[in-house]
């Protein structure tokens, strides 16, 4: 993630069956371990910067049971880091579901295994039915961030402090806390936060190195990014997106029609929306959620990079000009789509100066 590319790219949600797209197309993503390993190695070879998982504990039923199959993200990331050389891999952790002392040592382990390439995506959680699986009460929206604040404060102290400490918070009362080793090479893991509500942003302002946003309104992106960044130049702003593209506009339209309209799983898209609403995702209005039905089908409500390759490149250019540092993208199939990304998309981004070509591997 620390390379010089102006617009960074990562794979998103590949630890979950079907990735971001609710389609019955037979080539939809199967999140086996072998597929994950292959996709991440291909992404690394192509020079992509990161892989970002989604923490999911159950599927959404329906025909394809999108994301019914999901690998746990910390162990997933650690295994990928052990099997790669350059790419950064994130773990996505629901803070309410794991003790911060446990998580802090897991993260340090992953960070050491990856020689510093591990990043932590901290999420407060929104999916009520998943919390019920744990018998864990979901707190009121604003209180979730107070809890997350304590959780992250503890984790950071575990990573940095050289003497045992007690912690007397509202949610945690800990005695004699101390852990070694520290994160790799004296550097802390990159902390990412996706909070977009006011308390979410306030939390991110205090703790996160990278902010992860849902692009809600295309017309106000530049303003939204400025507002999220809030003057902090060193902080990266990333967004989620999904890429459904082909070389020409016509091919892309046909492919999109096939994936979304012919093979789309609308019941699943609706289910996903319903789950979002049940969890009180206040950062998106209920009205907006309804409008996003098709976007939930094509990419779980993330930003659409859809069209011929030149259209996609133009969109990325606009996002970059608006101040976005990169995007985590979902693909219908993270292996099958990589050659096209490598041969058609990346060279165009390089020509625009948004990314630098990878050096040819030395023989």
């Amino acid at each position: 993630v620390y390379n010089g590319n102006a617009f960074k790219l990562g794979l998103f949600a590949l630890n979950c069956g079907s990735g971001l797209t609710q389609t019955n197309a037979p080539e939809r993503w199967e999140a086996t371990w072998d597929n994950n390993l292959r996709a991440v190695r291909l992404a690394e070879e192509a020079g992509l910067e990161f892989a970002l998982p989604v923490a999911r504990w159950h599927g959404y039923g329906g025909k394809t049971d999108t994301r019914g199959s999901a690998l746990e993200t910390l162990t997933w990331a650690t295994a990928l880091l052990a099997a790669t050389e350059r790419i950064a891999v994130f773990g996505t952790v629901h803070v309410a579901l794991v003790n911060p002392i446990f998580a802090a040592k897991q993260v340090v382990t992953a960070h050491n295994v990856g020689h510093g390439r591990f990043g932590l995506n901290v999420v407060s959680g929104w999916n009520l039915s998943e919390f019920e699986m744990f018998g864990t009460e979901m707190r009121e929206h604003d209180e979730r961030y107070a809890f997350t604040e304590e959780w992250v404060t503890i984790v950071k102290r575990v990573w940095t402090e050289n003497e045992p400490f007690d912690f007397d918070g509202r949610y945690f009362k800990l005695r004699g806390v101390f852990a070694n080793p520290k994160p790799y090479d004296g550097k802390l893991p990159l902390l990412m936060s996706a909070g977009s509500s006011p308390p979410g942003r306030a939390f991110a302002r205090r703790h996160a190195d990278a902010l992860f946003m849902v692009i809600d309104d295309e017309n106000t992106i530049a303003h939204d990014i400025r507002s999220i960044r809030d003057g902090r130049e060193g902080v990266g702003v990333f967004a989620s997106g999904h890429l459904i593209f082909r070389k020409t506009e016509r091919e892309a339209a046909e492919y999109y029609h096939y994936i979304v309209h012919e093979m789309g799983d609308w019941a699943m898209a609706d289910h996903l929306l319903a789950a979002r609403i049940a969890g009180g995702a206040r950062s998106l209005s209920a009205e907006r959620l309804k409008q996003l039905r098709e976007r939930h089908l094509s990419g779980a409500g993330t930003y659409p990079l859809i069209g011929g390759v030149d259209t996609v490149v133009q969109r990325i250019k606009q996002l970059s000009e608006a101040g976005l540092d990169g995007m985590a993208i979902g693909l219908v199939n993270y292996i099958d789509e990589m050659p096209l990304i490598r041969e058609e998309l990346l060279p165009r981004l390089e020509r625009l100066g948004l990314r630098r070509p990878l050096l040819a591997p030395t023989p």
Partner: protein
Amino acid sequence: VSAAGRFAMYSANRLKLGIFGPNCSSGLAVTKVPERWSGSWRDNLALARMVDAAGIEFILPVGRWKGYGGVTDPSAETFETVTWATALLAATQQVTVFGTVHAPLIHPVYAAKMFVTADHASEGRFGLNVVCGWNQDEFDMFGTEQRGHDDRYAYGAEWLEIVMRLWTEETPFDYDGAYFHLKHAQALPKPYGGERPLIMNAGASPAGKAFAVRHADDLFTRLYSLEQAVDDVRDIHARAATLGRSINVCSTVNVVCRPTTSEAEEYYRYFADEMADWEAIDNRSGVALKHGFQSAQYEQYHADRMRQAAGYGSYPVLGDPDRVAGELAKISAIGFAGLALGFVNYLAEFPYFRDEVLPRLERLGVRNLTTGQHSQEPLAGTGIGKIAL
């Protein structure tokens, strides 16, 4: 090669061998010798690859959250065992790697998915060592109050039942226990290959042993003396039989192998007596005493401080290669299916053990294969078998 052929724990070797404790700085040895184990990731990775290539069946970590102080602060540096295991599994071919998990510190729904991920990343080579109770001063770090002794095992049984059900059940289930209340619990994927990870437990008290014989595939029991072990192994098998189960009895040994027995004994005296970190050893004992360590044989455990210094009270196997191989064969003959080995410096000492002791174990008929080639079918009644769901 079918997946089954890659499960090293399922080798045909009568005596399975493992490496114990490399995820912790100082490993098992509470000693000031400068060559003591670093516990670094680099050394862990190099060791795992080395023992993987040598046909060793398993690697077993210790779940530790803080050091024991003293001069050397043993176990001050530890990796979390499930992520550690997953990384080692991704970097090896055939060895089984366990995670050692304190059930009270992690939610079973969370844990079940971690284990499955580790299991898939290794095509079925992950194993679970479940721990029900531990040192209260470590639990204090988590803000977790330890339950009463026997209650811990009731909690552990619920915890493990939930993990197992998530591994096997195809439809969501509600769970209403004394400790957990879950709605529509479900998880996909299931463990790799229609099997499930091995379950290991080291319960030593009456309640602990009862838990282990009911729930575990492998019971780790302390080996005090070969004489006593005969009764212990018989007792465990008898307890399991009353439940209609069979269980593999395993233990830990501390190995010092040198060209001559006197060299080995001299080194043992040096690192475990002359250079022992007594302050750290007392801290460890103090922790156990203060917080109600209820192993029935606690007095015996405590009596031999040198064994504690050498390897958590593990049974010492010292000598030249003939003697070490002979001792291991004797332990195997008593009925131990597997032994987890400690070395002062695993990386420095394992090559000699591999080159000199493993071939002797073959000649003694205790192990068939040392080159990493394993039969695809487990031999019935010869140790750790494949677990079909």
